[in-house]
């Protein structure tokens, strides 16, 4: 299962307190920021809003997608369980330039602290 080692969950409840929040604004035809740097094993919530129209946020290699609609905040919680680069893109056609609307999640290993592990599935 290519998604093994990654634990992904959509936050259903607004009251949860993620350890880290990354805000991403989607607008034709880019994400800002378009590179999300995460640490292995460190939970993060990605909060997405749209500055103009309907977009999508799809990370096929993580088996993850969510709609990003104007006036709403879409939230995705990730606990990275694997080092690597994972491409994301808009999968809701949004006009001429849609094909360039993409970015990447870069998961890096934490700085070693005397043999601490990481990378296990949560």
């Amino acid at each position, binding site marked *: 299962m290519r998604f093994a080692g990654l634990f992904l969950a959509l936050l259903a409840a607004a009251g949860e307190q993620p350890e880290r929040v990354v805000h991403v604004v989607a607008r034709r035809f880019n994400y800002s920021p378009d590179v999300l740097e995460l640490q292995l094993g460190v939970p993060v919530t990605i909060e997405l809003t749209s500055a103009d129209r309907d977009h*999508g946020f799809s990370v096929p290699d993580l088996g993850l997608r969510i709609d990003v609609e104007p006036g709403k905040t879409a939230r995705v919680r990730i606990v990275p369980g694997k080092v690597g680069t994972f491409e994301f893109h808009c999968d809701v056609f949004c006009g001429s330039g849609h094909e360039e609307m993409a970015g990447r999640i870069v998961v890096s290993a934490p700085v070693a602290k005397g043999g601490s592990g990481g990378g296990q599935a949560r």
Partner: protein
Amino acid sequence: MGSRTRREFLQIAGVGGVVFASGLLGACARPGRPDSGPAAGDDFYFVQLSDTHWGYKGPANPEATVELPRAVELVNALPEAPDFAVFTGDLTHTTDDDQERRRRMSQVREHLARLRVPQLRLMAGEHDASLDRGAAYQEFFGPLRYSFDHKGVHFVVLDNVSDPKGILGDAQIDWLSKDLEPLPKSAPIVVFTHRPLFDLKADWDWNTADGSRAIDVLHAYPHVTVFYGHIHQEHHHQTDHIAHHAARSLMFPLPAPGSQPKRTPLPWDPSHPGRGLGLRDVDSDPRLPAYRLREIPLGTEA
């Protein structure tokens, strides 16, 4: 006899084409076809054109207005007219301006009217239909999904673009099941669609999110072939016994899946204008076990 004449021409011209092992087996007998008329079982051929992107302006093709007329000339110059021509989507390049969208569609319609083919089969791409859910497309070109029969082959046109999420949707999956229901399992079936039904490269949006559901429905039929566009290049893939063939674009080629970081168009080469563009003819010969595909380049390939 007419088709044989065409084959003789192709042999003389040294154009063999490529036979793909799927889809046509069983087409010889075509038992129980409800629509089988006098012509059922005849050989025939059609041409597939795709991704015209009329209205595109950009560096990937500085000759954007000449490709469609050139393709029309190529089809009209074939030694024998095909039974029909099919355009597998993205007739126009998208625009936010509804009037401009209609202007582009009107111009495409004028060009297509010059095709000397008995039948024209069209479908939408996301550039035609996603921003207005197919409203303008239907005004100009008709329904987004439909089926028809031709000489014993059942053709199905699927719409995976008018929903901007690039899906088929429950209603269409249900429609597909019902459309195929009267057919015997041995019936030869051809599906035309814009986006690939399988996950070719999902992170480039080269998939249909619920395409596997259509493939599941089609899987019950042993003789299915899918022709599609969207990826602007020749590509061949099998999902079990179902063959999927992508066609070249008539505007700009895109990179092979995963061959570069982004799916940006391949750069225009002024020394080889139109390289990578083209159309294909698809030969349905009951004497062969599969469709014979012949790629017809639009530009200078060498």
